């Protein structure tokens, strides 16, 4: 017995190659496709289904027609080339009407403005999305520059705008090499610039409105030493509100009277298609995140009134369908405002969509906050960090990181929900524009093509967001689990 218990290895074994069945493609196939009778059946069934879908739809795709004046013409071409009874896609409709899907009824001679706004949007997002990644930032700025040079040329932009754009992007590209952090200033100013490019009008409107923020900043820095952050922030916001309510409009008129510089005004009714969807989507995404964070923090607050207000707001908004809120925006809001106030419909919709998304985000972020161990709060407290610093430096970076997948899901949902503005008479790409196209006698009866086209663009944008969030998750992964 004793001899069986005692064992000493006198020679160590060298590693050897695994058996053929356990390596390479054979292993992969066996494990993933044919790992048992049930899975083998599923694999074969799956292949059959894929074959049936492809064989049914492939001719339709292959017989696509790109050059035709009407749906009837399309059909004739398909029959002539593929024989009686053949079907084919009629992309000629997209070729003729693509600009409506993109711009709605935006005046065609002004197309360069939304194009420029879109290009600069990407440029403004680059420093936020790729903070600290000089190479990615430069690539994006370069691509935007090339895109704008070509598209602005095609859209017939004024030479001045063309040169100014090139100068701006060149400058940003140079700055990205030296001090990429400074590019955030462009991001901060971009909303005003974008507003002016899209709606036009006097250049002084956005500039004077921005001065309200300058008032806020100056007031805050002047007061913070004496009153502390909370008090001075309140006074600064109050002063800025005074500026916007009482000084903004008269001052704009005075300056505009002296220097009437501006672009042709474009009315909100003329917006449509993806221009509308992206305007609403991007603005709502940008503003819903900070509001959602504040709501989430408010919901966790010890202060009863703050907490009650936040909970009430979140539960109310989440309990009501978005369409109800949109109807409120388009109809009811008018009753509560003073008569003859012209409160832009797109702005109203943006505000409601923002609040809607913010309520959802608040709950998503609350989940992230709840997932943090209480030790993190205690360690921050024990080091003497005050509430806002602890939140900003310790708690939120971790809570937001945990919630990235859900936050991006909310954003994607929000972006797709922008098509619901069709219900208040705005021309969204899915229902609004498609209906207009199908009302045309030439394209009456066209069904799949516009939806596939719009769906493809939505997919590209949403898939892009999804991939970006995965990239961000990988980048921020520091826990090494």
């Amino acid at each position, binding site marked *: 017995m004793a001899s069986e218990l005692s064992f000493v290895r006198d020679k160590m074994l060298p590693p050897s190659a695994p058996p053929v069945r356990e390596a390479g493609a054979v292993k992969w196939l066996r494990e993933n496709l044919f790992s048992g009778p049930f899975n083998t059946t599923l694999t074969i069934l799956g292949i059959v289904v894929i074959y049936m879908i492809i064989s049914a739809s492939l001719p339709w795709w292959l017989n696509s027609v790109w050059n035709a004046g009407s749906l009837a013409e399309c059909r004739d071409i398909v029959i002539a080339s593929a024989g009686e009874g053949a079907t084919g896609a009629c992309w000629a409709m997209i070729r003729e009407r693509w600009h409506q899907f993109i711009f709605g009824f935006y005046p065609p001679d002004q197309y360069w403005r939304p194009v420029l706004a879109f290009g600069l949007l990407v440029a403004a997002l680059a420093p936020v999305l790729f903070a600290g990644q000089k190479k990615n930032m430069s690539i994006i700025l370069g691509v935007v520059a090339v895109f704008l040079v070509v598209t602005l040329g095609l859209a017939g932009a004024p030479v001045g705008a063309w040169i100014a754009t090139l100068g701006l992007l060149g400058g940003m590209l140079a700055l990205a090499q030296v001090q990429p952090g400074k590019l955030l200033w462009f991001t901060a100013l971009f909303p005003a610039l974008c507003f002016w490019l899209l709606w036009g009008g006097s250049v002084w409107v956005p500039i004077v409105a921005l001065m309200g923020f300058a008032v806020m900043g100056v007031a805050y820095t002047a007061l913070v030493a004496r009153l502390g952050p909370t008090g001075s922030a309140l006074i600064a916001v109050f002063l800025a509100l005074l500026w916007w309510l009482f000084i903004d409009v008269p001052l704009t008129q005075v300056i505009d009277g002296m220097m009437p510089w501006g672009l042709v005004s474009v009315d909100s009714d003329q917006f449509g298609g993806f221009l509308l969807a992206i305007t609403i989507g991007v603005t709502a995404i940008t503003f819903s995140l900070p509001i959602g964070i504040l709501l989430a923090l408010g919901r966790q607050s010890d202060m009863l009134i703050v907490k009650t207000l936040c909970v009430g707001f979140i539960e109310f908004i989440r309990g009501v369908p978005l369409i109800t809120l949109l109807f409120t925006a388009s109809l009811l809001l008018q009753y509560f405002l003073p008569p003859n106030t012209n409160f832009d419909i797109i702005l109203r919709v943006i505000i409601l969509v923002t609040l809607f998304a913010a309520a959802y985000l608040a709950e998503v972020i609350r989940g992230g906050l709840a997932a943090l161990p209480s030790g*993190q709060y*205690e360690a921050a*407290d024990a*080091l003497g960090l005050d509430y806002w610093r602890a939140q900003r430096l310790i708690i939120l970076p971790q809570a937001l990181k945990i919630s990235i997948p859900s936050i991006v899901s909310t954003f994607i949902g929000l972006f797709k929900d922008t098509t619901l503005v069709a219900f208040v008479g705005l021309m969204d790409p899915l229902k609004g524009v498609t209906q207009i196209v199908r009302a045309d006698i030439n394209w009456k009866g066209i069904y799949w093509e516009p939806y596939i086209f719009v769906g493809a663009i939505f997919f590209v944008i949403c898939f892009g967001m999804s991939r970006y969030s995965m990239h961000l998750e990988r980048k921020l992964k520091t826990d*090494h689990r």
Partner: protein
Amino acid sequence: MSDAAIDRSKMQISDEVAIQIAGMNKWYGTFHVLRDINMTVQRGERIVICGPSGSGKSTLIRCINRLEEHQQGQIIVDGTELTNDLKNIDKVRSEVGMVFQHFNLFPHLTILENCTLAPIWVRKVPKKEAEETAMHFLRKVKIPEQANKYPGQLSGGQQQRVAIARSLCMKPRIMLFDEPTSALDPEMIKEVLDTMIELAEEGMTMLCVTHEMGFAQAVANRVIFMDQGQIVEQNEPKEFFNNPKSDRTKLFLSQILGH
């Protein structure tokens, strides 16, 4: 850990009062966790607090930097009384370092950033200077080479030493240890205790909740035994371990030293 290896030359206790607790009571809801706590800690004292679990020892030291609120009595730390005044609380917290059982390092920041964060944002130390200080303390806890790693890449013992360095970067006058070694593997306990001994040798005022009786015997100048939210017995370590007075203490010591 023999007494011979420890340098007691700087471990002097001054007359200056570091912490004064008088008639302090605390309740969790209706549960009376801390009952009539009275204690005075002189500067330079090294106090070990022990007792069975649930005896309120962690709660006691967490009251000293106001992670827990007390409802009755007085706590004065470094001449500042802890009340609801946030300014006083922040002042006390920046003077008192704390090391937790589960380290509580910030996992999204590197070791160096963990150490420089509070000095930069609370003490307003310039970044460069804060980094130099951090490296100084990281060298002291013997892990300067880990400065640019993340907490998740370090072993438990290393993480706890980083946590000690992080506290030291705030140049605290008092250090609180809340069971600093009870989440560690036996092999790693020693490296953390060695760091704490070194700190004691430099004259730091320390309050330490721990079950490491060897550490208590070697370093502490006073051992406090708590049970059911009250201080049952306190004495200098030799007397405490060799000649415990209360029956409760005897029972506790026989249970933790008996095997």
